[in-house]
Every structure is written in structure tokens, then in C-alpha cells.
């Protein structure tokens, strides 16, 4: 019997495990400020006619805000690789749904079929 193995390394340590990190209130305040500023910018930008850039900017700001929330409010920055991959997998599948379905709708216009 191998008594020397007490813990499966992959079970209790990396890459599925991360130290419990406490994010400081100061950091939360900074994130909060950034999010409010982002909201203000996105609203202002919407009232300026930038042509095709309007939706791009609006969605880019939304993405940045979402990433900030995920990283700090949801602590993913301090989480294990496993959690990071899980988050990634979710968005990956979402993109598969969008792009693969869209491939049908876009290419329907290419031919008369």
C-alpha cells in the first residue's frame, strides 16, 4: 500500500484548485467606478452618429464591462484554471450556436436554393 500518497495532486492542488483570495473593497470601488463610466460613455456614444461604428462601440463596451465583472466581481481572475476554462467553455458553446446557425442564414442568400 502506498501510504505516502495522501492527496491526489490534481485533486487538491493545481490546476483545479486556487487559493481563496479576498478582493479588497478598494478594488471593488474602482471596478464600480469603471462600470459607471463605461455606462456613461456607451450612452453618450449612442447619441453621436458614427455610422456602422455605433453598434461596434456599444457592444465592445458591453464586452469590456462584462469581462471586468467576470474577472473581479465574480473573482475569476483569482480562480483556478478549471473555473477559467469553464467560463471559456460557456462562451465557446454560445459562439458555436451563433456562428454555426448564422452560417446557414448568411449563405442562404448566396444562391437560389
Amino acid at each position, binding site marked *: *500500500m502506498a*501510504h505516502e500518497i*495522501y*492527496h491526489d495532486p490534481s485533486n*487538491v*492542488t493545481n490546476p*483545479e*484548485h486556487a*487559493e*481563496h483570495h*479576498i*478582493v*479588497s*473593497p478598494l478594488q*471593488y*470601488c474602482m*471596478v*464600480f467606478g469603471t*462600470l*459607471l463610466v463605461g*455606462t456613461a460613455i*456607451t*450612452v453618450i456614444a*449612442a*447619441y453621436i*452618429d*458614427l*455610422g*456602422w461604428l*455605433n*453598434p461596434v462601440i*456599444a*457592444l465592445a*463596451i*458591453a464586452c469590456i*464591462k*462584462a469581462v471586468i*465583472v*467576470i474577472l*473581479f*466581481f*465574480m*473573482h475569476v481572475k483569482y*480562480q*483556478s484554471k*478549471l*473555473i477559467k476554462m*469553464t*467560463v471559456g*467553455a*460557456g*462562451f465557446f*458553446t*454560445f459562439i458555436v*450556436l*451563433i456562428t454555426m*446557425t*448564422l452560417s446557414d*442564414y448568411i449563405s442562404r442568400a448566396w444562391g437560389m436554393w
Partner: protein
Amino acid sequence: MDNVIATHPHTHETAVPAEHEHVVLPQHRHHFETEEQQREAGSFGMWLFLLTEIMFFGGMFFAYLLYRNWYYPAFTVASNQLNVPEGAANTAILITSGFFMALGVWAAEVRKKGLLVVMLILTTVFGVAFLGVKADEYHEKYEKHHIPGSSFSTAMFTNPAAYGLKEEPLAPDMAEHTQIFFFLYFAMTGMHALHMIIGIVILFWLTWRAHRGEFSAGYVAPIENFGLYWHFVDIVWLFLFPLLYLINRHPLK
């Protein structure tokens, strides 16, 4: 029998904060080896649940993307009927609510019971405020006959001048498609609001438990996991707001 089994010493090899040592929490479920394992399992489970939420909203986001491309003129004018100031205010309110939730998680982690309760109450208050503004917006849609169904009216889009709008009138067939926009608006914001309502109910329960001091002795998993849920609901709104309210204000010609 059972000679695969060997004693497994419960050593905490990982650096657990000092005050966690030697305290077996009453909430520790004994099928977990360590509290650390329990906590990580809980948050991993929560994340997996959020993945299902991404895919759930994903179906509606795709429908929005598709029909916006198909019926672009209808979507732009219909979108301009949404109340941007209220939407922007709601975004700020929701971010504030999320901010207090994050502080609540911190308060639980550093074991400040009173602060935690206050933060949870603030989170709830702002969540309810969001729903209040949302209700006002829904009411506005009701008055404008923009709720899909039998009372839906395209008059505002076929004859904008009569309503004091500067937009070009839509052809009747295109104006009919504004109904799809409003349906998606109600489906997406409604589904979001439903998540908020569920969240607020859970918040009441958590506040009560926090008040009893359940989360002030190192057991913070419910607060953390609920925080994940609440922030996820925020994120959905962060996308709904620009998609529904903002990106259609300057239609391409």
C-alpha cells in the same frame, strides 16, 4: 476485505487562513474531505449552472440577431421607442446593486455580520428599484400599445408624424415586424426580470440567515455563490441594454 482502504489523514496542506484551522464548521458536509473541497465544489457547480444560463439566454440572443438583420428598419424605429434615460438609469442601478453584492461577499469573507446584512439589504433595495423602473417602462409600452398581442398597434410607425416623431414612416408590412422586436424585448427583459425576482427572493432568505449569523464564522459559500448568480444577471443586462436600447439610434441608410 476493504484492503484498498488506508487511513487518510485530514491534513490541511494548503494554506488555509490561520483562523480557519481546527474549526469544523457546522455547515461542513461530511461527504467532502475538506471544507476547501466543499467550497470549490460549490462554486464550480454554480459556474456550471451559469453556463446553462448563458445557453438559455443564447437562444434568445440569436433570435434577436437574426431578426434584427432581417427587419432592420422595423428594429431601429421600434428600438427608438424604448426609454433610454430609464434604461441607462436602470443600468446604473443594477451595477450599484452588483457593487453592494460584491461588498457583501467581502463582508462575509472578513466576517463582519452587521456590514453583510446592510450590504445584502442594499443589494435588495437596488434590485427592487430596478424592477420598479422596469415596471414603469412596461407600463409605458402598455400605454403606447407596444405590447405584442391583440392590442398591439403599429400606428406610431406607419404614421409617425401624428405622434410628433421625426422618423420616416414605415411601410405597413415592415411596421408589422416591429411586433417581433417588442416580443423579443419583452421576452429577453422579462426573462431577465424573472431571474431578478428569483434572486430577490433568495436575497431575503440570505439576509435572514446572515442576520442569524450563519455566514459570520467562515462559512461564506452561499453568499459567494449567490453573488455569482447576481453578477451573471447583471452581465445579461449589460448586453441587453446596448442591444435593445442603444445600437439602433442611427440607422444605416
